[in-house]
């Protein structure tokens, strides 16, 4: 019996590693294809913010003692320029161009997968612990085991065609995703310096992860995802209801004997997190300031990076919806609509935070999905991130509606979008509306995904409440 179980466990452990190695090999094979399969020229993959070609141009300008932001080619961080710039120049005989950069992105993907797996394991432990606390015997003894969401999420992330395309297509999205996942991991593990570092770097590289500060604070204060507090309180009331309410001290003992449910918001980790955030921000700002001191200083840097992102200066087509709109809006209304589009992300933050404060990881997923839909230059690398994080909630979202429709929709959009682009740009038989139609379909799919996943999660919470209410009803 035992050796069989051990070999079975080993097999299960190896299963994950096998798939991981297979995905790495697959990526390396694709990298060795000539010219990276021209993926780097696809607008869905490389945007003005993530394109490696632009980074190489920025680095070349810097080597000529000209500001890397001259001429509106490079709009990223100067630290990334110092990191990846020298790699773009090194050429090895007989190997494809940018091999070193591709290897960096593959390594980033691997680290992402490992971190997602670790986060998933953490979340799953918390989930099982909460179920035990709620005495959800039924769920724990379900016929199929609780799926290891960490492994599933990591493999979904690795084998998602979007991720592979973003990695092979020489975009810097893997590094941005690395920063975001690092911060989530650090927050789940209650490691304030790591979480702060990840958040600062993610905000520095692309502005939109700044909204993840709310899930960070909730993660550090409350802990990883748990069912709503109400359930724990109800459970306690039911338990107390069992015993006659005469003995006050007995009741208190009961309460004390129960293992602690952390529904108190602990401020210490949050204060630590904020201190470390400020320290890391000062460090990053000083480094950036020194990098660009001869090219106009920090203000120029902010104008060229964040200003570029927020004012949507580049209207080349991508898989988002902003380019089409801002190509035709009148100048008089341009600022207004910029505020509307970016405010759209901000408006949704507070209600979601209120409703999902007991599930900060899921809240982070929803924020990432919303921001990757409404950001100024979206790409498939952003979808890769949230689709990977979706895998973390496989257990809770098992009953999600429209999942098959969404899957088919994603496949359809990812196949049609290059076709429409070809029709429009290369053959000239289509026009911008063809391409924008696929972009709009993509946005609709993302909206449906967000809405359905949130409702599925809330349904799951309601389902958790049911046995307790039955118990209560049964009692009374």
């Amino acid at each position, binding site marked *: 019996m035992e050796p069989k179980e051990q070999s079975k466990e080993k097999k299960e452990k190896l299963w994950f590693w096998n798939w991981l190695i297979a995905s790495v090999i697959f990526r390396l094979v694709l990298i060795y294809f000539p010219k990276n399969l021209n993926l780097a020229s696809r607008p869905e993959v490389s945007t003005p913010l993530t394109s490696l070609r632009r980074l190489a141009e920025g680095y070349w300008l810097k080597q000529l003692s000209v500001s890397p932001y001259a001429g509106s080619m490079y709009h990223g961080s100067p630290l990334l320029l*110092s990191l990846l710039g020298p790699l773009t120049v090194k050429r090895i005989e007989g190997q494809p161009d940018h091999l070193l950069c591709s290897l960096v992105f593959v390594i980033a993907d691997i680290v992402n997968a490992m971190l997602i797996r670790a986060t998933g394991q953490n979340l799953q432990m918390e989930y099982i612990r909460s179920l035990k606390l709620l005495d959800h015997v039924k769920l724990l003894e379900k016929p199929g085991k609780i799926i290891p969401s960490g492994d599933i999420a990591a493999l979904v992330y690795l084998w998602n065609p979007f991720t592979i395309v973003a990695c092979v297509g020489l975009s810097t999205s893997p590094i941005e995703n690395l920063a975001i996942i690092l911060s989530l991991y650090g927050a789940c593990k209650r490691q304030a310096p790591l979480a702060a570092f990840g958040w600062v770097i993610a905000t520095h590289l692309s502005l939109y992860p700044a909204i993840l500060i709310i899930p960070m604070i909730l993660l550090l204060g409350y802990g990883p995802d748990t069912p709503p507090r109400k359930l724990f309180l109800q459970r306690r009331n039911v338990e107390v209801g069992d015993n006659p309410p005469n003995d006050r001290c007995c009741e208190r003992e009961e309460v004390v004997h129960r293992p602690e449910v952390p529904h108190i918001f602990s401020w210490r980790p949050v204060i630590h997190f904020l201190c470390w955030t400020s320290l890391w921000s000062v460090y990053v700002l*000083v480094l950036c300031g020194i*990098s660009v001191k001869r*090219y106009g200083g920090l203000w120029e840097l902010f104008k060229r990076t964040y200003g570029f992102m927020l004012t949507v200066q580049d209207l080349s087509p991508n898989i988002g919806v902003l380019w089409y709109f801002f190509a035709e809006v009148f100048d008089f209304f341009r600022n207004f609509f910029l505020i509307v589009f970016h405010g759209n992300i901000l408006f949704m933050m507070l209600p979601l935070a209120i409703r999902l404060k007991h599930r900060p990881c899921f809240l982070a997923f929803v924020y990432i999905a919303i921001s990757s839909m409404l950001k100024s230059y979206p790409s498939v690398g952003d979808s890769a991130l949230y689709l990977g994080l979706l895998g973390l909630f496989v257990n809770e979202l098992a009953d999600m509606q429209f999942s098959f429709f969404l899957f088919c929709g994603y496949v359809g959009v990812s196949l049609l979008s290059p076709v429409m682009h070809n029709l429009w740009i290369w053959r000239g038989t289509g026009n911008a509306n063809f391409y924008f139609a696929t972009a709009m379909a993509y946005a609709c799919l993302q909206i449906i995904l967000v809405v359905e996943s949130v409702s599925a999660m809330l349904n799951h919470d309601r389902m958790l409440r049911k046995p307790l209410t039955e118990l209560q009803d049964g009692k009374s």
Partner: protein
Amino acid sequence: MRFKMYGSFRCRMVLLLLFLLLDCNFSNCLADTSSEATTHTNNWAVLVCTSRFWFNYRHMANTLSLYRTVKRLGIPDERIILMLADDMACNARNKYPAQVFNNENHKLNLYGDNVEVDYRGYEVTVENFFRVLTGRHENAVPRSKRLLSDEGSHILLYMTGHGGDEFLKFQDSEELQSHDLADAVKQMKEKRRFKELLIMVDTCQAATLFSQLQSPGVLAIGSSMKGENSYSHHLDSDVGVSVVDRFTFYTLGFFERLNMYNNDSLISLFSSYNPSMLMSTAYYRTDLYQRHLEEVPVTNFFGSVMEMIHTDSAYSLLSRKESFRVEIKMSADKSVPDKKRLMDNPSDLDQISELNIEDQHGALKRIWSTIQKEMEKVEDVDAFVSYGLVLIVPLLAVSMWLTW
């Protein structure tokens, strides 16, 4: 490493200050400091042909030859004022219409595609000449007809035609007198319209024309002295008139073997005139000119070769303080006269910045300004940033270990 850089920067500042003090004393001793204080900004050429009529073909050929030379060596049309009667090329008596030659071998057509004449025909008058020199024009005169020089300009003034003892004949109806010319030059000097002026005159008794000059910074050469005539070089039997004067012919001979990059000095030009070949004595006066002729390249007047200062900074984004600091660094290598103008500004700026620092309340702003000063002292940016990036990993590990 940082202390060494700090030290070397301080050393350079101290040396620079000492140098500037010495230069200050030195320049105070000199009688005229104004011409040394300004930088040489641009070169202008005013080329005047004061004759008309077919038999004065050679004067127009002289002027056009010099125009071509000056353009070839780099002065653009915007900075050339060409005053010609311009009645040769399309003259009814010209066998070669729209062509003007300065040699009987007809190799070079001086009246090519890109001759821009600013004052032509009856506009070449003494009044217009003086208006050009002094810059006192009517309102409606276009910019192409104005001498828009500034206090750093080097001006070449070339005049050719018929002249005599202390005068120059203009278009057979007026004359320009030497004291009027001296007066005009004096006005130009007072209005700071030139840094250095070279007057070249190719007429009979040319040296008398600039005998009354008194303004500093003026160099003058004439093709003949008082009592001598200047002669034409040769007769072109095909065209039917003399096509070039001797003085200008030998001047052109000197320049034809030059290009923009030659360093030949003015003294080589002036000593190239052979009195027996010229059949007159080319006389030049240098008493009003401070610099030694051996050190002055001909391209200072006849061409347009500018000194280039290379900076690493982007053009319009620097703050003023930084730009002056960059200039101080560069001018440590430059010649002495240029420093005086720059010296005044940095000390003012430092004073202002110190006042600002003292006025600001709050330790935070003081800390930020000290951080900025330290940041500005970092020389090797790339290495610093790479070290900073590499340092992140151990810092992160240490911080995580601390808060475990």
